[in-house]
């Protein structure tokens, strides 16, 4: 039931923007601009204007001649209640209330927020927000927010902080990381983390669910749903307010109470939610799940420089993963084509002269080694004399396709712009490509931890 209802937030046939504006200084301007190219119908609602950004405007959502699935409400706060009632009368299914000034604003705001929920219940509307940035679906090409389009990807990202969510979207644009959906949940007056997890569990475009959490109101409901969902789809959470000083900051921020972190940590572990330590950790872990799950924790590393191999081994160790003991045969066969200076013990250091063909052969041998559960491929500065920027990535991708034995492969390409094309190529092949040893290690940890839990179940 929930599942069906929430579809209207991501793939609505028609959208009304209440508060769509011609004034570029207003949020309603950006929201409508972002939605204009959506493939469904999008109606601007503005009480004063005839047209908004060249599109015929309606004075009231009720005046729209056709059905409306989703309403985005960006009107000034004093009009929100009426706007929601109008939506109810129109038969709107879902409403994203961007407008702020409710539950986060003390007792009076809380009361007004409860009124909104009562109206919604009366008309059978589900609400996301209020006090949020909105909702994006990169697969349906819907951007019902006032921020830039996120890149397309396979991680569903749910953020309790609108501003931080937006900051992360902008960060991922720069870092070439994609999302399937971005949902800024705001005050969670109605739709909350649990509802979204339940919905996203069934969403084929989302391979994993990343949550940024400041405070959970209904802990039992969260756990119940998370326990169920985490059996089929990974959930990764970053909780703000770990430290006492952090928690202190949280209590002065949103309406929600900041529980002691030990309790959150317990709840996460118990319900199969993987815990991230930082924003990059959250993203790195979530991005890993385009890969199959490993059978164990034994990782093989291949690299064209010793240092990054060791740094990565350090980070894997920190997260409880093991370096695989390669079979004698594997090492012998590596020795056959790698130069004498290369190290054929794990981490396999093919040294700087390694070409795409060496990456291909090495990856193939390591994937075929029964002692290896997972492969981390590292390339630092692939532009040695005469090398193409993508040959190493191509070698890896070719090996993965040929071996095709369902072992996860992760990549660490460490040279900024220089390795951008290679990372793009890998991502296109579904191989998550990272830029930092700690990130690829977090990804490996996430795969192993989720697999461990799922094998246990």
């Amino acid at each position: 039931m929930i599942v069906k209802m929430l579809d209207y937030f991501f793939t609505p046939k028609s959208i009304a923007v209440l508060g769509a504006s011609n004034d570029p200084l207003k949020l309603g301007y950006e929201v409508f601009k972002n939605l204009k190219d959506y493939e469904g119908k999008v109606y601007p609602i503005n009480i004063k204007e005839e047209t908004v950004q060249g599109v015929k405007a309606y004075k009231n959502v009720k005046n729209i001649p056709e059905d409306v699935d989703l309403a985005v409400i960006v009107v000034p706060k004093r009009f929100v209640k009426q706007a929601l009632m109008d939506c109810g009368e129109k038969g709107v299914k879902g409403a994203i209330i961007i407008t702020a000034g409710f539950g986060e604003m003390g007792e009076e705001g809380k009361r007004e927020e409860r009124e909104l929920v009562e109206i919604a219940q009366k008309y059978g509307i589900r609400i996301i927000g209020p006090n949020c940035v909105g909702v994006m679906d990169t697969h349906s090409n819907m951007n019902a927010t006032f921020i830039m389009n996120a890149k397309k990807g396979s991680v569903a990202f749910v953020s309790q902080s609108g501003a931080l969510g937006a900051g992360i979207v902008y960060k991922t644009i720069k870092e070439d990381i994609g999302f399937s959906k971005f949902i800024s949940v705001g005050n969670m007056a109605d739709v909350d983390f649990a509802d979204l997890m339940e919905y996203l569990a069934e969403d084929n475009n989302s391979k994993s669910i990343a949550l940024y959490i400041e405070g959970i109101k209904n802990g039992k409901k969260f756990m119940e749903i998370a326990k169920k969902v985490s059996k089929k789809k990974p959930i990764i959470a970053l909780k703000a307010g770990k430290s006492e000083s952090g928690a202190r900051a949280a209590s002065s921020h949103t309406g929600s109470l900041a529980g002691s972190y030990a309790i959150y940590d317990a709840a996460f572990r118990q319900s199969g939610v993987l815990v991230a330590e930082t924003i990059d950790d959250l993203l790195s872990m979530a991005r890993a799940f385009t890969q199959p799950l490993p059978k164990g924790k034994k990782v093989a590393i291949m690299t064209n420089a010793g240092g990054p191999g060791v740094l990565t081994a350090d980070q894997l160790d920190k997260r409880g993963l093991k370096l695989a003991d390669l079979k004698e045969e594997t090492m012998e066969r590596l020795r056959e084509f790698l130069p004498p200076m290369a190290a054929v013990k794990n981490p396999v250091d093919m040294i700087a002269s390694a070409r795409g063909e060496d990456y291909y052969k090495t990856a193939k041998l390591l994937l075929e080694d029964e002692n290896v559960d997972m492969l981390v491929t590292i390339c630092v500065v692939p532009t040695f004399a005469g090398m193409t920027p993508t040959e190493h990535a191509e070698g890896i991708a070719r090996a993965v396709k040929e071996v095709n034995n369902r072992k996860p492969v992760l990549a660490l390409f460490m040279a900024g712009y220089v390795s951008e094309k290679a990372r793009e190529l890998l991502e296109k092949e579904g191989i998550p490509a990272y830029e930092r040893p700690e990130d690829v290690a977090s990804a490996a940890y996430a795969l192993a931890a989720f697999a461990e839990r799922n094998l246990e179940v």
Partner: protein
Amino acid sequence: MKEEALKIIKEVLTQGRKALVEYEAKQVLKAYDLPLPEEKLAKNLDEAIKYANEIGYPVVMKLMSPQILHKSDAKVVMLKIKNDEELKQKWEEIHENARKYKPDAEILGVLIAPMLKPGREIIIGVTEDPQFGHALMFGLGGIFVEILKDVTFRIIPIEEKDAWAMIKSIKGYPILAGARGEAPADMKAIVDMMLKVSQLIDDLKDYIKEMDLNPIFVYPEGEGAVIVDARIILK
């Protein structure tokens, strides 16, 4: 199980109290079949002597009073009592200490308990969180909890695998596993206690706010465990 426990709790509430004395707390635990020493509440000296002989010397005496919850501070715990004579003498002393500490303390009786064989010390506790409800705490006793804060939580109710995960997640786990050359501790007994406490709290969550089972002595594999002291605070 629930009914018996509830009876004790309601009795305490009727008296306008929120904190159960050790004896009452242990009665609640007993209703859920948690491992307790063979203890008896003596209302007078004759009963005390009778119980001490039934249990067998040496025994421990603990004075039970709703006004004296910190028994060590009040010096109302007497250890290693060897015979009837010493018991008589300590009976006087314990009551005098109680009077000195809290002149108007209501005295429910004196708990006569056996001297327990020491074991590895653990703590099981319960606290209530506004968002997630009651949470179970587990840790090793002594410096592990006091200095290193080496404890772990799970939300109640817990499953058996949660209990095992808790035991294995603490830093002091090697102590239980027997890293110092001893036999491994009776982990099954620990898991059993955790599951029973989880059940107890799940049944009585509307009444109980906090609980401390501290210390619990855990013996080598197959030899079980015993809850030495217990506190329960009601809502």
